[in-house]
């Protein structure tokens, strides 16, 4: 099994989620994180000025998605995310997963997906 993590600019998240839903991927955990400015629009250096003090924006709110899939599906999911987020940018990476337990049903491993 694989853990797929994607960090996307907020603007690109919706298309990705839509694409994954079309693909039939149900299990997805989303969190708001801070990341270096991502993508085309956010990537331009931006500044904020409060009471005369100018500060460069080093981190921006971004969306982080965590998905656990079978080894077989992982390739497709990464491909879908890459295509769907193509217009906005971001990053996606894959890690191996030892085990997974669905607490309510006590199912383990791929049965729990």
């Amino acid at each position, binding site marked *: 099994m694989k853990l797929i993590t994607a960090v996307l600019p907020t*603007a690109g998240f*919706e298309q990705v989620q839509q694409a994954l839903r079309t693909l039939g991927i149900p299990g997805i955990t989303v969190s708001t994180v*801070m990341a270096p400015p991502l993508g085309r*629009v*956010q990537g*331009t*250096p*931006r*500044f*904020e*000025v*409060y009471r*005369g*003090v*100018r*500060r*460069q*924006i*080093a*981190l*921006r*709110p971004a969306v982080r998605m965590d998905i656990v899939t079978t080894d077989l599906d992982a390739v497709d999911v990464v491909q879908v995310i890459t295509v769907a987020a193509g217009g906005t940018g971001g990053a996606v990476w894959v890690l191996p997963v030892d085990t997974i337990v669905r607490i309510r049903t006590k199912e383990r491993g791929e049965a729990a997906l």
Partner: protein
Amino acid sequence: MIPYPSWLNSGDNTWQLVAATLVGLMSIPGIAILYGGLVQRKWAVNTMLMAFSAFSIVLVAWVLYEFKMSFGSPLHMGPGILRAAVGKPGTITGAKAEIGQANIPLVSGAGLMPAFRFPQSTLAYFQFAFAAITPLLFLGSVIGRMNFRAWLLFVLLWSGIVYSVNAFLLWGGGWWAQMGALDYSGGYVIHLAAGTSGFVAAAVVGPRLARDRARAVPNNLPLVACGAGFLWLGWNGFNGGDMYFGGQNAAAAVLNTNLATAVALLAWVLLDMFAGAQRKPTFLGAVNGMIVGLVSITPAAGFVTGTGAILVGLIASVLVWLSWNKLAKLKFMSRVDDALGVVHTHGVAGLVGGLLVGLFADPAMAIYYNKDGSAVSVSGLFHGHPKQLALQAGAAGTIIVWDGLMTFVILKVIGLFVRLRSPDEVLELGDLAAHDEEAYPSEEGLAAVGAGAASTGPPPTESPASAKSAEPAAEP
């Protein structure tokens, strides 16, 4: 020594200044934070800045030429309505204009009301607060995409060209006032005007980004509660000040205003609970109902009885609820992106309230008294004066046509010189791109640069690549 001249009454002057301040608080901070909380998080700063800026623009224009255009001597431009449609522009910055007795040449000097008992500066400031809140109300239609520069020009021109005519026609003793059309406190001059102009402006400026329209969630409901509260209680000055004296009719207007508002709020909540799509009461629904009550009683406040006020609040709330939930779904309505639905809560509500004056205005509600003790009052259809309803409809038609047409023309002209809608790059980021500010900035995400920065770490310099990509996104 004596503190003030004999025509001045300190009670009337005090009430008028308090009422004016209450109306001002409805704009700043009332509307600023109501709208600031209702918009998406990324537009809160832009919305509040537009509100504060418009408030300032109107005051400067007001004392330089606009007060005289709204409440001065008529500018004779032709026959009929053109004979008394707008006043001659002029300043009110001199000592005499500020200290002298207030006067509206066609009204107070013409024996239609008692002579004012406060100075011109009190009248000017009181009426300024009304002139200022009107553009702030239709700000709700164009937020989330209108270019800040275009907004400044729009407010300046709209206020001088459109508002002054509205006010002169109904309050400055202009043609519709002479015909007998009634607007106690701005159901037409302000709310119908804001609803109409906002809707037309939203159509001309164009919609927000499709994604923003689809995800237009408010960023701060407690802030909305504060703004809505300022509006409600501020309305005591809005409607309580428009008889110009701290008298019996002002007191009745204040009570009626609150009564209609309470009824309208409850009616909207009950409609949401028993007829709405979700069958649940909502806070933002309650705020809508509150605004509808306040707006609809505005043209009627001191003309109707308490019973009339209850009926006005109830009828308006039901009609605007239908307009909001049914009419808004029609294609031609949803094509126009009236962001906060100003055309419903202000346009339709103001129109309904104005027409209901033509039905419920009660002659027993004394506004002023003649020397012989008889009451000066008005009456509607249900009190034997059907013509009043026709007058109310005629005045409403004039406001809708004039405001709609001129809003269109003004924006088209501004659009020749300044872009009305910010570029998409700005719209995607919102406040950050337009103002270099955010409503809720993150402390962690910022690294100080320049003179105010702490001397830790190398100062980030703009790389050649980033300088090259300097797009018009930085333009407000």
